Structures are given as C-alpha cells and as structure tokens.
C-alpha cells in the first residue's frame, strides 16, 4: 500500500500535496476556525464530530467496518475522509416543508416534520441530514436506490455545465 500511495503522490506532484494539506486541516478544523464558517458548515462539522472516543478524540470510518480515532488515522485515510466530508457538504440540504413529497425518512422511519433539516440526494431521495450524513461517511451510496453518490454528483456537474 505504501508504494502505491507514494507512486500516486509522485504522479500527482505538487497538486496533491497542496490539496492534501488543506484537506487534513479540514479534518482537524473546528477549534480555532469556527467563527469563519457559515452556520451550515458548523452544523455539518458538529455532525461529523459527534462520535468521540473515550479520550474525546473524534472517530472516523476509513472503511465502513473500521472505526478509529483521528489520531490513529494514516494520512491517506485522513485525505479520503476529508474528501468525503467535502463532497457530502456539496449535496444540497434544506429545511423540510409540508409541500414536499416524501413523508418519512426511511433510515430512522420517523415522519419528517416542518423544520427538520433534510438532505437532497442527486437521485432525488431525501433523508434527515443527521441520518444520511452518518451513513455517507461509511458508504457513499444512496440507501434507497444504491446509486453511488460520487458518480451522480459528477453527472450533475456535467449536465449543469452544458446548460
């Protein structure tokens, strides 16, 4: 794995190094930089930080069945997680209002009530932000249609670019 990553790094050159350091600081963010974030970002970062280990270090899932505190993640894993967090924040979110179609969040099986924070997936499925974001950190797929979210995201960028 080590060789593979270093090969990848050298292939990407400075470009990756630059983005890597940004992403890592994104993972560690939340202590000093909060004031500069929008309320939406603060909300999301609270979600990502809600699982704390006993030593109060946030825990993440480098793969769906592996849970590890931040200080035990490899750089590669941190980059992967930070990228995932960035992509999740690109998914539109909003506040549920009664005119919307779905009645129930199929993850928690609780009816949406006006004012609930919901996330709209590229495939048009809707979930509570707190329900879907935790899942997306483990698996980047829509639980209802199993569409890979990253592919769908790129497709929406492409179509909006042609407009």
């Amino acid at each position: 794995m080590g060789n593979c990553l270093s090969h990848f790094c050298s292939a990407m050159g400075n470009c990756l190094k630059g983005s890597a350091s940004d992403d890592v600081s994104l993972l560690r963010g939340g202590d000093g930089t909060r004031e500069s974030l929008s309320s939406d970002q603060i909300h999301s970062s609270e979600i990502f930080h809600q699982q704390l280990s006993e030593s109060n270090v946030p825990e993440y899932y480098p793969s769906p069945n592996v849970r590890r505190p931040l200080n035990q993640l490899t750089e590669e894993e941190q980059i992967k997680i930070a990228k995932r967090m960035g992509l999740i924040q690109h998914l539109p979110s909003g506040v549920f209002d009664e005119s919307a179609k779905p009645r129930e969040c199929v993850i928690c099986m609780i009816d949406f009530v006006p004012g609930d924070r919901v996330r709209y997936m590229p495939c048009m499925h809707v979930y509570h932000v707190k329900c879907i974001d935790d899942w997306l950190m483990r698996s980047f797929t829509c639980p209802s249609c199993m569409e890979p979210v990253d592919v769908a995201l790129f497709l929406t960028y492409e179509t909006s670019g042609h407009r």
Partner: protein
Amino acid sequence: MGESSQSSLLLRKQLSELNKNPVEGFSAGLIDDVDIYKWEVLIIGPPETLYEGGFFKAHLFFPKEYPLRPPKMKFITEIWHPNIDKNGDVCISILHEPGDDKWGYEKASERWLPVHTVETILISVISMLADPNDESPANVDAAKEWRENFPEFKKKVAKCIRRSQEE
C-alpha cells in the same frame, strides 16, 4: 449519546409494527423484554421448498449503531444449509457491511443498507432458504452435498425439520 436512543427507538417501532401487523412466514419478539437489541424470531420453513414443515428459531443481535451497521443472525434450531454455518451463524450478503467483502463476491448493492429492517432481513433469509447461494458457502460440506449429492442433502434437511417439530 444519540446513537443508542435512535437505534432503540427504531427497533421499538419495528417491534410494535410487527406485533400489530404480523408478516407471513415468521414471528418476532425479544429474547428478554428489557433488551431491545436482542430478538428471537421463529421462521416457518417456506412452503414448496425442502424446508417446508420446519420451525426454525433464530436470534438477531443488533449493534447500538443500527441502522448504520447490520445485526448478526444466528439459528438456534439446528439447520443444514449452505449459507448457514455449523454454529448457526447466517452468512448472507445483506448482513455484510459495505466494503467488508474480502473475497469480492458481493456487489455493494447486495450488502447492508440502513433501510433494512427486521422484516426485510427475514424476507431475505426466507428466500435464501428457498434458494441457497453456493458461490460463497458458510457450510462448505452442505454446499458440496447440495451440488453433488442432493439426495443426501435432502435427507439431512428432513432430519432437521423433524427435530425442529419436536422442539
């Protein structure tokens, strides 16, 4: 914090729903009334399959992180099936977490999703009884027998059914 209250709420909801509107093919309850994470189910051997006539007791153990993580399922009644190991542990792809597939047999779409409920899990297990998957067997001997010596396989299943009726 929120994690365990969310999972227990969701499991309670499913339990009361299943009590109100039972689903054909199985019945479900708790092993111990105070622990919502440990379920006992009774599966009726699906009609027109080798398992017809059997009554199979199984336990489901849910993690606190349910529905983000799948439960484990274990048959308590002895059962001979390619996808149930000799300890009774059920090995089907929807109970495996995404990214958990060491051997590459399963598509991500066939694995665990947070929309699965006791009902959808049991429907999958009942369809697995009717239609074993011998590509990734948990009981290699049963899978081999199912492929190569079907009469003997049938005989072992019939024995399990008789025993399950006596329990």
